[in-house]
């Protein structure tokens, strides 16, 4: 029986596998006033983000996702990161996460998000991890259109 090896355990860390199996804040919440859908046309991953925004505070952040383990875990970890945070803080968190993964600097991520750091070494999987975050940004900005991973970079 072969073992996974360091590369695979670095990508699929226990926290990632745990969040993909048991996602936090999954499903449409009872109360929300913002939502957005994200789509990765290359692989068909779909994410929907629901927000309850009150006085610039993200009271509720929840998601629905049909996608790979990396995408689901990233969405789940994201909700834990930005829930009950101010809009500005959440934007900064999105920015930091996107930059860390897209510049190969996954190792700079801290806290539970560090578990997703290995993704930055897999170019074909970075979009799986960033899709929920791009979708969160669209929900915060209340942009109507579906976002896709093929848009150049996260819009401000």
């Amino acid at each position, binding site marked *: *029986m*072969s073992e996974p090896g360091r*590369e*695979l355990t670095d990508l*699929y860390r226990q926290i990632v596998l745990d969040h993909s199996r048991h996602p936090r804040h999954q499903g449409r919440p009872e109360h929300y006033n913002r939502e957005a859908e994200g789509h990765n046309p290359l692989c*068909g991953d779909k994410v929907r983000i629901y927000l309850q925004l009150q006085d610039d505070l993200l009271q509720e952040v929840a998601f629905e996702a049909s996608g790979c383990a990396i995408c689901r875990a990233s969405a789940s970890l994201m909700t834990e990161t930005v829930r009950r945070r101010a809009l500005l803080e959440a934007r900064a968190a999105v920015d930091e996460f996107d930059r860390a993964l897209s510049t190969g600097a996954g190792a700079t991520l801290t806290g539970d998000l560090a578990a997703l750091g290995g993704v930055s070494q897999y170019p074909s999987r970075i979009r799986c991890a960033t899709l929920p975050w791009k979708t969160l940004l669209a929900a915060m900005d209340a942009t109507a259109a579906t976002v896709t991973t093929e848009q150049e970079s996260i819009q401000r």
Partner: protein
Amino acid sequence: MSLVTASPPLDVEAVRGDFPILAQQVNGHPLAYLDNAASSQRPLQVLEAMQNYYTHDHANVHRGVHSLSHRATDHYEAARETVRAFVNAASVREIIFTRGTTEAINLVAFSFGQRLQAGDEILITAMEHHSNIVPWQLLCERSGAVLRVAPINDAGELVLAEFMALLGPRTKLVAVTHVSNALGTVNPVKVLIAAARSRGIPVLLDGAQAIPHQAVDVRDLDCDFYAFSGHKMCGPTGIGVLYGREAMLQDLPPFQSGGDMILTVSFKGTTYNELPYRFEAGTPHIAGAIGLAAAMNYLTRLGLPSIAAWEAGLLSYATGLLLQLPGLSIVGTARDKASLVSFNIAGIHPHDLGTILDQRGVAIRAGHHCAMPVMERFGLAGTARASFAFYNTRGEIDQLLDALRLAQRMFA
């Protein structure tokens, strides 16, 4: 089939020696290249043919008065004759070099498409690759024609009765894949062609997935158009072929325009070249055509019946092993199937499978395979697909199984 059993077995180890790319380690494991439906690898014989051409004979074709241009033209036209013989076309005038299957289909959609009027119908199937859907959708937008889609059943087979029912007085073209890239289904194309032609309806076959695996005889098929790519049959990328029945091509307006496709150009008017040059504007991919001919010679030397027999063995071996994995379901279980297996494993997304397998040296495709309507038909976001060529071995399929078991343990 007696033809298959009578064919001499392949010496696969010797064949693999012709493909140096296969003898490498990927992520610390021997490469098991099982993504042949996306693109095959090419043997040294193809690379050498192209290198010889560029080293000794290159110039532009069909125009120069000098020796190199004559030689280049001779090689290019000899390649066309090799293609003609390979698909048993009646004449080299019926062999048009294109960039690939996609461009070949676009040529027909553009040139044949100019005949279509509002209310006319084009009939395709629910198992088509995007390249045999989108050109027709665009044609429908331009002309007001209507795209009709014959359904497939749960095994991924065309529902013949529905197909026949959709053949009507308004049907102006049938465009069907010979072999499905996402499901492996081999369509009963002779039956479809006979039905269409008895009603006077021309038929285009998308042969991209068929031609690497079985002998194709366009006259026996009696199709009007047959489109295929070089890179899926051990030839170069950027070269493909549209076979067109001469009587059909004769009446079609040009596709792309420019040099080589004209006889005379003046500002009063332009006259077009004869077949097949009328459909080959600009300097063609000369080296690509030469490489494609070398690939066809290579496949002919191995013997397409021998190739088909080996691949059928790989398919049944892989199918048997895969079905032993708990939670694995095969998508596409047609009775007549090419050597590929599309599958899903419960609880593991195809992309995660693709990444884990890659870390074990196993190259497969994960996703919608450019056939999103097929995925929609089966209610799937995608599948993992292992597709085999004649140079693959049972050992590589064992390696695939080991890697899938590892993925199942990781996600248990």
